[in-house]
């Protein structure tokens, strides 16, 4: 089969496009599952992201067939789609920013930017998966046809697409706080009216009742950076806000709008670079709290690598 008559694309093109769309959609689906906790706004958020994923998959899948059919204009649609995804990022950011007003513990601008960025990147990975799957299908087509095993071509496309999904999942997998810091429970206590976790000062709490509540329900977590890179990450205010947000989102926080003293805070120990979280969770279970803090993603914007530079290395010792 070659290119069909009257400019109609032949079977191999349809096979390539369908394989590409299928695998691209699968890629988006696979990545949607992993950000369940990240940004839980299903089922409607889920549906709209899946729909965008299908669009992305389609855009990726038609690129190679369009080029082969000398439909250069079709390729320019790819640019349009990329533009579209930048808007997805804006949209995602705006939604989250607006929801900040309703959060007891804010995500913070850095975390929001990070989430929006992840959404955009995942759409690009979807395009790339679809493109690979459709390209491989096309490449294998004549070889498979020659041997009378036409199904081998889309099967190859599926394999290649799956490989991209797996590689992408690993490559785009987010670094968690637990992998760059040691996280343990700390001793939450008061010295007069000052709240401490181990030797890290958190805040000053004036009301007697609030101090009692902290003594009864409060938990302290000490976050110890494993190296100077992690120390720089931990110093970032956005990163620390993300820790407070996730801990509060997962364990709940004994706080309402009019009681700011129960806002969970993460403060630094300037001499050692360690940080500590003090929180009054609704579920005062140490294990889940530690797990929640370990699972906090390292925010890309907060990831600096002073150790990668010569002055940084020299300053480290």
């Amino acid at each position: 089969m070659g290119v069909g008559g009257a400019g109609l694309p032949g079977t191999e093109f349809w096979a390539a496009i369908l394989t590409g769309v299928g695998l691209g959609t699968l890629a988006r689906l696979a990545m949607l599952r992993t950000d369940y906790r990240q940004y839980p706004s299903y089922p409607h958020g889920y549906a709209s992201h899946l729909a965008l994923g299908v669009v992305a998959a389609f855009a990726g899948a038609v690129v190679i067939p369009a080029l082969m059919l000398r439909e250069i204009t079709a390729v320019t649609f790819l640019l349009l789609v990329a533009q579209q995804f930048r808007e997805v990022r804006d949209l995602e950011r705006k939604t989250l920013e607006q929801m900040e007003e309703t959060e007891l513990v804010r995500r913070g601008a850095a975390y929001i930017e990070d989430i929006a960025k992840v959404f955009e990147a995942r759409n690009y990975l979807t395009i790339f998966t679809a493109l690979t799957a459709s390209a491989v299908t096309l490449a294998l087509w004549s070889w498979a046809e020659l041997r009378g095993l036409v199904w081998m071509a889309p099967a190859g496309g599926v394999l290649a697409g799956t490989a991209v999904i797996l590689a992408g999942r690993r490559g785009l997998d987010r670094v968690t706080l637990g992998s760059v810091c040691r996280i343990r429970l700390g001793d939450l206590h008061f010295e007069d009216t000052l709240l401490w976790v181990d030797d890290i000062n958190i805040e000053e709490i004036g009301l007697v009742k609030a101090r009692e509540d902290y003594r009864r329900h409060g938990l302290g977590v000490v976050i110890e950076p494993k190296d100077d890179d992690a120390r720089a990450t931990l110093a970032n205010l956005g990163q620390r806000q993300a820790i407070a947000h996730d801990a509060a989102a997962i364990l709940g926080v004994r706080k309402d709008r009019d009681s700011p003293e129960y806002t969970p805070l993460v403060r630094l120990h300037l001499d050692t670079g360690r940080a500590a979280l003090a929180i009054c969770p609704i579920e005062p279970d140490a294990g889940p709290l530690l797990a929640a803090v370990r699972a906090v993603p390292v925010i890309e914007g907060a990831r600096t690598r002073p150790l990668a530079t010569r002055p940084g290395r020299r300053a480290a010792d």
Partner: protein
Amino acid sequence: MPEEKILAIVTLKPDKVQGGGAPVFVTSGDEEREKVATYLSRILAAQVHDLENGTYILVSH
């Protein structure tokens, strides 16, 4: 970033507080001071800080 502001001052020792900007509530005992501070805190959604010299300040964070 955050703009800290003193919204109110609750004190047992008015002679230790001066100047304007925030209303000063003079109270006559620990219990009353605690109560007034709690009310103001809830009403203003402000955090109470104890300066440990007889004065509480309510700060919006």
